[in-house]
């Protein structure tokens, strides 16, 4: 024998998926939403995104090379995805130093303390975002008014009231306390569904454009990067939860009775107590198109590392996220709750994986 042959166990070929390609696929799927936010929020989007991505990569590099003294794995692209998703969950006028703190928490505490990619129990980008939300509540909940490319990154102090606004969810949550109905509130705040669908609303810049996020979802499905289970169960459970509440609300009851031309039995729940009136029972479409449902369901909840392994487990997890989100939105003190909902359900993932096993053959 003049030649050495390689010996290894089967299989001897491997598929086309690599970690890097999967991460790249997620990045590509986020491009439509990025472009949409660029159209509405202008250069702030680029500034926030670049700072977030660069600092995430830098922190991962520093921690791997100098603190853990382990192999540097920043080329797998996961830090870029974390940075991108963190940025998508931030206002486009967030000061640079807050973004850097968020990246440090996301990468440092959310990811590397647990051993890096594959070992973190909680979604790193959301760990970073929720840390910022609790630490800098005002900066994180005041969004610039969309003025296209002209939208300033740094808003002068004397213009803050005039050129910033809150999210539709926050506006409704605040307004309902004054006793106005949802329909009135939508009118007062100049909110309509086409703006919500296209993204012409206040919010973290990555979450506003529902249609762009749905394009990304379709791309992820075609490339087989994710399956439908988590997004559909999150969106479906939010729709059902919101829909049930809405039917019992004054508006929903009237609209359904009128359009279907039937006389729905009056359920006492709708005018039960003063307390119930401060819960906003907006219609399901409003709930789906505002806040972070789309971004959360399609991109945050589907994070491989922190979501369940089996289809059945994914549906349980997604439904849990939808229900908790709605509980926070309707009954909680925060106007939006999907970040918390995903983190809470992240905590249940090991349990789900332990007890929900795939159906064995035979």
């Amino acid at each position, binding site marked *: 024998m003049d030649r050495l042959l390689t010996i290894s166990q089967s299989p001897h*070929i491997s598929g086309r998926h690599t*970690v890097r390609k999967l991460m790249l696929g997620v990045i590509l799927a986020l491009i439509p939403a990025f472009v949409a936010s660029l159209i509405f929020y202008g250069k702030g989007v680029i500034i926030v995104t670049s700072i977030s991505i660069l600092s995430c990569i830098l922190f991962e590099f520093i921690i791997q090379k100098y603190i853990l003294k382990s192999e540097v794995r920043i080329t797998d692209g996961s830090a870029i995805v974390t940075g991108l998703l963190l940025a998508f969950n931030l206002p486009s006028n967030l000061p640079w130093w807050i973004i850097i703190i968020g990246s440090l928490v996301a990468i440092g505490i959310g990811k590397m303390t647990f051993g890096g990619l594959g070992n973190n129990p909680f979604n790193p980008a959301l760990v970073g975002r929720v840390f910022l939300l609790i630490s800098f509540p005002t900066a994180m909940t005041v969004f610039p008014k969309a003025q296209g490319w002209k939208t300033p990154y740094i808003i002068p102090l004397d213009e803050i009231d005039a050129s910033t606004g809150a999210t539709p969810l926050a506006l409704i949550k605040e307004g309902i306390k004054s006793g106005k109905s949802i329909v009135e509130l939508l009118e007062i705040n100049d909110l309509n569904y086409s703006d919500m669908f296209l993204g012409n609303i206040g919010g973290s810049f990555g979450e506003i454009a529902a249609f762009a996020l749905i394009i990304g979802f379709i791309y992820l499905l075609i490339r087989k990067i994710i399956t439908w289970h988590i997004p559909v169960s999150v969106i479906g459970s939010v729709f059902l939860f919101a829909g049930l509440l809405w039917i019992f609300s004054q508006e929903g009851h009237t609209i359904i009775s009128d359009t279907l031309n039937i006389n729905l039995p009056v359920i006492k729940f709708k005018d039960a107590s003063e307390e119930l009136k401060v819960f906003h029972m907006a219609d399901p479409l409003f709930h789906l198109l505002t806040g972070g449902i789309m971004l959360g369901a399609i991109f945050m909840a589907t994070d491989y*590392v922190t979501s369940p392994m089996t289809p059945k487990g994914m549906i349980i997890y997604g439904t849990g996220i939808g229900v908790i989100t709605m509980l926070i939105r309707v009954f909680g003190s925060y106007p939006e709750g999907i970040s918390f909902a995903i983190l809470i359900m992240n905590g249940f993932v090991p349990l789900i994986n332990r007890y929900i096993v795939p159906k064995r053959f035979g």
Partner: protein
Amino acid sequence: MLKTFLKGGVHPPENKLSNKSKIKDLPVPQIVRVPVLQHLGSPAKPVVEPGNQVKAGQLIAKNEGYVSSNIHSPVSGKIAKIDDFIDSSGYKRKAIAINTEGDEWLEKIDRSKDHINEFSFSPEEIINKILEAGIVGLGGATFPSHVKLNIPRGKKAEYLIVNGVECEPYLTADHALMLEHGEELITGIKLLKKALKVDKALIGIENNKPDAIKHISALVKNTDGIDVYALKIKYPQGGEKQLIKALLNREVPSGELPVDVGVVAFNVGTTFAVYEAVQKNKPLFERIVTVTGKSVKNPSNFRVRIGTPVSALLEAAGGLPENTGKIIDGGPMMGKALNDLNVPVTKGCSGILVLPENESLRKEIQPCIRCSKCISVCPMGLEPYLLMGLSQHNLVDRLETGKVLDCIECGSCSYICPSNRPLLDYIRSGKAEVSKIIRITKQ
């Protein structure tokens, strides 16, 4: 809608380079090395001595015990020695070396090319001839065929399934056989139906062999009780359990055999060998082997005597390419990598695949990102990522409850893993640990 199995599966590039190649007879080699263990079960016991003259087809090693198989001389000549020789497992095992002299076959063997359709054998006679001829499953599992044909008391076979799926990439031996020996194959199916006393036979062929589907369908058009099904292309459809699921929608329960759901399955190669054994009195001493690979000059299908060294096959296909990194006995998904070109062809060898250096080495292992692709491709509904972890920590009881013994080692999990994790390697070792403990506790 084409039939297929539902759970899991992958679709690797098919690379059927030799699917237009006619079967060529490989010249009889100067020396053959015939291992006495070429099947699942106990090794056969040599019945010849060095110096004995043998003819092709003559019994040289007799089956030992029920799950074992006869071995016949593939050539005529003189027994040179009986010693340990390397085989495809990489270990040295007992083999009979024969120096070839001419090519004289036993007189009872019908060497003509005529197709003999009629037969009047009883089921017992057919099974006995199969036992005598040393026929084992030629799809790769090499399970002795006569054992499968003896239906255990209290059980009943309803269907015969003939496996023409050939889902392994590159391999075309079964494809070529179906195209060139279709008539004999059908007679083989009739013989097996008679032996099993079943009325229905189903032939499953994957849809990447339209010519074979057309040819076989035309041949059985006027035959009752034999149906051809085109199957959606999906690996590992050639796995017995997956094929039964695809064709009959029956699931073989964990730890049980196909006959428990009323099915007995044979590969097309085995079925053809049955025809030759019963109608032509020809023991199993040659088979069709695909020699292939992107770097191979002439990827071809050869009719090869058992015991022929792999080097002779590579020579016949245009020589060993310069950049060869790996040589595989079998297909790329389940085949065994060879470390020596003198390894003899055995009954279970359906192909010799040559991979160039740049496709030979595994890629760097990265951390598991829990993408769950291994779960979604597992045809047995297992959790490969979990079984690998349990195997690394030797948690034998949880491996067992995780159904590690159900693993058919198809390799879909390792194939799909984006982090190139050696899932199947660890699962194999986990299976071995669990089986060992079960063996010990049974004693």
